[in-house]
C-alpha cells in the first residue's frame, strides 16, 4: 500500500512538473512566435527582436528553474531557419508577383544595382515580369513553393519536437545546400550580367548574403544531436 502511495505521489509530481514545463514553454513560445512573425517581415525586424529575445529569456529562466523545456539550440535553429526562409520568400515573392509595385521597383532594383544586377538588368521585360537574368526565375519557381515553404513547415514540427520535424528539417536544409550550390554556379556562369555596372559586386553580395547560411549551421547539429529527443 505504501509503495503504491509513493508511486502515486511520484506520478503526481511528474505530472505537475510536466504541466509547469509545458506552460513555461508555451509562455516563452508566444513571445518568440510574435517576434518571429515580425523578424520574417524584414522591415519590422527591429520590433520583432526584443519580443523574440524576451521569449528566449523566459525559456532560459524556466530551464534554470529546473523545468523541462526545449533545448536552446533547437529553439534557435527552429525559429532562425523559419525566419531565414520567410525573408527569402518575401524578396522572391515580391519579384514573382509584385514586380510592378513601386516598392519592388525601387527596393529590388536598388538592391540589384548595389549588389546583383540580376535584379536590374532588363528588369520587368520578361512576360512574367521581374528579374530577367538567365536562370533566376527558374530558381524562384523551384525554391519558393518547395524549399522555403517546406522548410517553414519542417521548422514548426521541429520546434514541437516531432520526429518528422527533425527529419524534414534535415531534408530541407540539404535542399539548401543544393540551392546555394546551383544558385551561385548560375550567378558565376552569368557573372557579366550580374556584376557589370554594379556598385558593390561579388564581395558585396557575399557580405550581404552570407548570413543566410543558417541551414548550413543547422545541418551539423541535426546530424549530431541525440535524435531520440524528437519523440513527440
Amino acid at each position, binding site marked *: 500500500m505504501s509503495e503504491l502511495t509513493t508511486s502515486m505521489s511520484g506520478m503526481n509530481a511528474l505530472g505537475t512538473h510536466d504541466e509547469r514545463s509545458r506552460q513555461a514553454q508555451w509562455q516563452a513560445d508566444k513571445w518568440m512566435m510574435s517576434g518571429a512573425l515580425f523578424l520574417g517581415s524584414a522591415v519590422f525586424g527591429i520590433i520583432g527582436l526584443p519580443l523574440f529575445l524576451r521569449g528566449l529569456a523566459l525559456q532560459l529562466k524556466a530551464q534554470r528553474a529546473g523545468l523541462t523545456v526545449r533545448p536552446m539550440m533547437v529553439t*534557435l535553429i527552429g525559429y532562425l531557419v523559419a525566419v531565414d526562409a520567410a525573408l527569402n520568400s518575401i524578396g522572391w515573392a515580391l519579384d514573382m508577383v509584385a514586380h510592378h509595385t513601386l516598392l519592388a521597383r525601387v527596393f529590388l*532594383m536598388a538592391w540589384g544595382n548595389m549588389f546583383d544586377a540580376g535584379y536590374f538588368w532588363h528588369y520587368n521585360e520578361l512576360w512574367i515580369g521581374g528579374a530577367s537574368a538567365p536562370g533566376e526565375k527558374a530558381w524562384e519557381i523551384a525554391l519558393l513553393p518547395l524549399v522555403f515553404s517546406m522548410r517553414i513547415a519542417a521548422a514548426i514540427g521541429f520546434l514541437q519536437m516531432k520526429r518528422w520535424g527533425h527529419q524534414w528539417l534535415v531534408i530541407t536544409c540539404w535542399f539548401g545546400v543544393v540551392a546555394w550550390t546551383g544558385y551561385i554556379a548560375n550567378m558565376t556562369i552569368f557573372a557579366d550580367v550580374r556584376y557589370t555596372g554594379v556598385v558593390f559586386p561579388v564581395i558585396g553580395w557575399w557580405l550581404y548574403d552570407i548570413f543566410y547560411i543558417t541551414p548550413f549551421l543547422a545541418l551539423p547539429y541535426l546530424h*549530431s544531436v541525440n535524435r531520440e529527443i524528437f519523440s513527440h
Partner: protein
Amino acid sequence: MNSEPASLNETKSHQQPLPLGTTPAFAGMHKWLQRGLVVCLTALVLEGAFTFPLLAMWYGWPTLSLQEICTEFEKIRFADESRVCIYPYPLFGPAEGAGQTTAQDQWGIQPRPQYKAIGYRELIQRVAARQAAESTGVP
C-alpha cells in the same frame, strides 16, 4: 523534452550538465554552432530592417521621391531618357519593358550591359541636370 541518461548529459571534466540532446563528443561543436546562429540572427534582423531605408537614401531619397528613383532606374536600364515609372501600374498590363529596343548591351553568349554603376546620390544630380536643361530649353 524527454529525459536522457545522466552519463550523456554530463561532461567528465567539469560535471556541468549538457543541453538535452547534446552528447559530450559534440558539446564543443554545438557551442560554436550556437554562437554562429546568434550572429546570423542579429545580422539578418539588422539587414532586414535597414536595407530598404539605407538603399533608398543611397539612391537619393528623401530628396527624390520613390517614384522619381524608379523613373531614373528605368531611364538608365533601358538607356532611354523618355521613359517614366508608371505608378500605379495597370494590374493586367504587359511588363513595362516588354518589347523595348533601346537597352544597350554587348550581346553574345555572355551578354554584357553597357550602363555604368550609379554613384552615391548620383540620381539627384541627374534629375537636377535634366530639370536645368528643360528650364533653359537646352535638349
